[in-house]
């Protein structure tokens, strides 16, 4: 008897192939949409972090801070030998290190002005940046000491073309006003909102302009072989540096319930904490782009809402169908009851049908979603697309967390069982004699 009910339930489903196919199809469609959204959200943060780390030239960063006698806070690494020594001691491995300085500047060209952050790095030797930053106009071959690379958006707002001279005004690390002239060497493709704000200049040139000496800079970025290694790398580097007696700002996990990223929380600590001399911060790319996690949470939340709305509609369909099924099989139910089948077994029969329908539909939906993901990820959008930041090498990429898929299937199963419960209960309550004499 234990397996008879499920077998009858399966047989009943196959008896009404068209109806089962439509109901299961509706469930599969809903699950497919939700799985696609989950898959997109699953890969989103990794893609953003990875792409952003390429633009920032690092997965893990060390930033130097110094307080002057007058209490002014400077961002500077005067001597990096101690950082590299800590790296050697901890046996950490990385692909390459990039030294950068950043300054917020006003760019001027023929009456037009725009505020922009200039990132200084060694443009002549940073081959990795050359691979990642796609140039729309200009060439890497024309890079000189006073070169600047602007994104399309910024170049268009300033109305500049490669070869134009741009004046920049900014403050030195100690806050004094200074001016420097740059030659626009190239215009890069806008890669998302973040990419379109990046402007690159030569490290030595900008360092001199902001008052840093030769060999000094603001931050050191480490590019690792794998983004997933960033957190353990940062943790070990932090421990190693702390072990060498280097003063460090505590790594932060962000602020609960706020949009503040761990990086922002760390910067706030630098402003508010009482400290003196030199100190270092160690942080990962995830600490900077952790706000992207909120987008993932929003996408997951949206997918759950879609799931519930879709299934509210499907539930009504299932509920009506099972009510119809109950009336269609009223004599069958009467016969079964007359032959000794118990009320709970009748209810179980209906619920088993609903459960098989839900699982069949959900599994089909996941399979369909996986097929759709495979097909979508084959499309090459190229590196020039504005959506480059959320893609993996110009392709859409997906990752469905297994637990999330299981959660969706469980939700569908519960909702379907709930939809079928009342018709099942009504069928179970039916008196055999009444059922047998009821004319369809």
């Amino acid at each position: 008897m234990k397996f008879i009910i499920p077998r009858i339930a399966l047989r009943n489903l196959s008896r009404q192939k068209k109806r089962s196919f439509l109901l299961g199809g509706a469930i599969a469609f809903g699950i497919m949409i939700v799985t696609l959204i989950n898959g997109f959200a699953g890969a989103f943060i990794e893609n953003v972090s990875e792409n952003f780390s390429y633009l920032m030239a690092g997965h893990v960063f060390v930033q130097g801070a110094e307080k002057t006698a007058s209490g002014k806070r400077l961002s500077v690494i005067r001597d990096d030998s101690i950082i590299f020594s800590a790296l050697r001691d901890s046996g950490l491995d990385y692909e390459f290190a990039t030294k950068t300085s950043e300054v917020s500047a006003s760019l001027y060209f023929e009456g037009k002005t725009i505020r922009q952050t200039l990132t200084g790095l060694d443009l002549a030797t940073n081959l990795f940046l050359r691979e990642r930053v796609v140039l729309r106009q200009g060439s890497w071959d024309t890079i000189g000491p006073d070169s600047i690379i602007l994104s399309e958006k910024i170049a268009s707002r300033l109305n500049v073309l490669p070869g134009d001279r741009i004046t920049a005004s900014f403050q030195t690390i100690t806050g004094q006003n200074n001016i420097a002239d740059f030659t626009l060497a190239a215009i890069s493709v806008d890669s998302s909102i973040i990419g379109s704000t990046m402007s690159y200049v030569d490290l030595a040139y900008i360092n001199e302009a902001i008052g840093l000496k030769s060999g000094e800079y603001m931050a050191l970025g480490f590019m690792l072989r794998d983004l997933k290694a960033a957190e353990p790398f940062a943790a070990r580097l932090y421990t190693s540096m702390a072990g060498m007696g280097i003063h460090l700002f505590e790594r932060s996990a962000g602020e609960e319930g706020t949009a503040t990223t761990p990086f922002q929380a760390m910067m706030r600590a630098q402003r508010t904490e009482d400290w003196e001399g030199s100190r270092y911060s160690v942080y990962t790319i995830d600490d900077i782009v952790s706000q992207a996690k909120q987008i993932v949470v929003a996408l997951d939340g949206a997918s759950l809402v879609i799931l519930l709305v879709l299934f509210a509609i499907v539930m009504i369909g299932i509920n009506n169908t099972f009510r119809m099924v109950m009336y269609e099989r009223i004599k069958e139910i009467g016969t079964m009851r007359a032959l000794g089948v118990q009320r709970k077994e009748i209810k179980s029969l209906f619920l088993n049908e609903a459960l098989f329908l839900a699982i069949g539909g959900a599994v089909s939906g996941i399979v369909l979603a996986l097929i759709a993901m495979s097909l979508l990820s084959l499309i090459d959008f190229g590196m020039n697309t504005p959506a480059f930041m959320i893609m993996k090498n110009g392709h859409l990429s997906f990752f469905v967390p297994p637990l999330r898929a299981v959660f969706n299937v469980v939700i569908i199963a519960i909702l379907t069982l709930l939809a079928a419960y009342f018709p099942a209960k009504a069928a179970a309550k039916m008196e055999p004699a009444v059922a047998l004499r009821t004319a369809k």
Partner: protein
Amino acid sequence: MNTIDISRRRTPALAVAAVLILCLGMSLGAQGLSNQAAEKILEELDDLGNFPGKDYSALFTIVSEKPGEKQSVSQVRVFRRDSRKQFTILVMLPEVNKGQGYLREDDNVWFYDPTSRKFSHSSIKENLQNSEAKNADFTASSLKDDYGIQSIAEGKLGQYPVWILELKAKNNEVPYELLKLHIRKDRTMLLKEEAFSVNGRLMRTTLYPKYVSLENKLLPSQILIVDEINKGEKSQISMTEQNVEKLPDKVFTKAFLEQVNR
């Protein structure tokens, strides 16, 4: 004849000598100024711009011009208490920014946005309301302490003979490394200030065409700030309702900025 000849020969020689002596005298006079009088002038300029033991309030109307943009008018009410390195700036115009404010206490400057009702960190080096004026322009003057005199020259600005003082920053706490001041000779009045970048490029010219007298002090009532990097960008500031009466302490608090917006 010889005498005449001699005298004829002596006359140009004497004239040259006289001119040389005069030039030397003027030069020495200017050099002498650089050591003592010039510093005294800087001290006087600082005194004119500061109100020790008193507070200062005024209504500033700022007319800004930028290339390719419409002229914009802002109005801010400025409250200063130099003895405690405090200021409060309350934006009155444009209507869209009304209620915004800046509060300085010591070296901290906060910006208040009435829409979000939040304070955020700002700096005295930030520009005020998209104009060429910086928050630092509303702080007490400390030329004598912050700058050393590099050179002194004489010149004329319009109809006024002026001392031209070139100043170099003594520390890196000031926004401009080099300043060139044009100060009226007959009475200590700053007429023009040129501010240079660290690498010696002219960034900003400030003209002081009008002054008013307040409690025996000459205060500028109009300032013209010209951006020398972005040609065509300038701001004219007119100061009215200038007052040095004591202000209530609450004016220099965050609560004041919040309260005026209720």
